[in-house]
């Protein structure tokens, strides 16, 4: 299971990356895409929408199920990865490249998991 050491994680299987100028990128982990299976549809918020920590901001549909995606942070959506709307399979192919949203105006919260803690969380060895 691919868990890059440079990223931070949530228990609900989102990854978080701090970009320059206070921008934070959010996506789904390799574990999440593996559990979901082939993703066939992605529903993203609009640019300018507020997101709140712990609340859903997007949903992804796989052949198995529709799953909510929860925001690790509170802030305002600054960009969405529009390419995913027509190519949701990119999340399966490259989960850490296929960011869902970028959020501005927030600092990275302290309660996120590092790679080792996330690894322990999902119990993979």
């Amino acid at each position, binding site marked *: 299971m691919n868990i890059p050491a440079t990223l931070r994680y949530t228990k609900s299987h989102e990854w978080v990356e701090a970009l320059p100028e206070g921008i934070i990128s959010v996506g789904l982990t390799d574990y999440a895409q593996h559990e979901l299976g*082939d993703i066939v549809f992605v529903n993203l918020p609009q640019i300018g929408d507020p997101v709140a920590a712990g609340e859903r901001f997007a949903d992804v549909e796989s052949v198995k199920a529709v799953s909510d995606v929860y925001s690790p942070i509170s802030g305002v959506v600054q960009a969405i990865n529009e390419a995913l709307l027509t190519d949701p399979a990119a999340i399966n192919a490259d989960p850490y490249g296929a960011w869902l949203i970028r959020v501005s105006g927030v600092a990275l919260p302290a309660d996120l998991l590092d790679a080792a803690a996330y690894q322990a969380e999902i119990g993979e060895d």
Partner: protein
Amino acid sequence: MSTAQIPLIFERGQAGRSQSRLPVSGAPGAEIPPALARRCAPRLPQLSEVEVARHYSALERRAFGVNNGFYPLGSCTMKYNPRLNEDVAALPGFTQVHPLQPAHTVQGCLAALRQAETMLCDITGMDAMTFQPAAGAHGEWTGLLLIKAYHRARGNSARTKMLVPDSAHGTNPASAAMAGYTVVNIPSNAQGGVDLDALRAAAGPDTAGLMLTNPNTLGLFDPNIQEITDIVHSAGGLCYYDGANLNAIMGVARPGDMGFDVVHLNLHKTFSTPHGGGGPGSGPTGLKNFLRPYLPGPIPVEGPDGLAWQPAGAESIGRVKGFYGNFLVVVKALAYLYTLGREGVPQAAAHAVLNANYLMRRIAHLFPPAYDAPCMHEFVCTLAQLKKEHGVSAMDVAKAMIDAGMHPPTMYFPLIVHEALMFEPTETETRETLDEVADALAHIHAQALADPNALRAAPRTTPIGRPDDVAAARAPRVRYPRPESEARP
């Protein structure tokens, strides 16, 4: 069975072929404004009657229903439907009627609705019921509108959240969203029931209500049910009972006594009216007296000259369907209730629970239950270990069941169980059938260990092996493309 591809009906027939010859009309033709007239004729199939009959008979032979074999689709209650129900629903007094005909000429139909309401309210512990909802999710949505009307009538617009456990059917959050609510997900506890602390933390002045299925989709009856409904009521919310799994407790325990204020039933599941073929269904919504002002109308009531239609009240949520719902489905359910009687209804529930526990125990050493406790009418196995150790998934086992002449169970649901298979044998299966199923599953399990690749290639006996679900979802083709050779006029 022939595995040759059956052409679409659009690909059959010849121009000019038809089934009946209509006499030339003597009526003058109607003028259609040119802007509204179509530019080319619709491309309708042109077949003889026998071609149509053979086409659909060929498709029918490829279908699998409860008449073909074991059909344990969990949370669907695919019980066998006695033919007597069909005979009753085909009586001319129920079929040769018009919904707008004067009430005094259809007293029997109104009486059937009243009697069904009385019996189903007795079974659920409700005070009134509307038969308008056409199916389960429609009944859920209707029930949520009743809850919304209740809060609105009390001037409370702050109650915007609907609590839904994570083991719920997907229709619950969907219906809540359709009714304009924000869904709050309540996690399950280690025993598979509602996490009471999480419920307490979520319930508050913004809570409109809770939607709960009991027994839940794990086939488990929540022993804390009274406390659950108390927590929601104390917070000012109402409790909604999803009747999808009523088959386990009908005639034994009543949602109304557990503290529920609104219920919906699936007559097409619990009360032996066919489903799975596209309907029609019936999802009546029952309610306690304090919600009666919001009931959709018209409602059949006893009047001085027999039964009459009473219009909906001023505070009604309004109609949710044309006329009176899928009336003949209600007639079938009524026939079923009269057949079983007061003693037979709880017996059917008890047999459903017994059958599920019997099958669960017979296969538990191979396909372990997700929660090791006595189940109600259905149980969920987890094949996570089989997948990890032998690379055989729940999907592979389900597909192998098709080759064994059985319908697969519900797969990958509820979502909180990994590699889930959810069996609901129902009360109408015999012990011999359950033993055959257990033996077949043991054979499949042995094959999973000995030759996993064979299972991954299942099913082998069907015209289509494994459909490409991903391609179908990503690029659905849902209409017939006119062939290039057929020029548009």
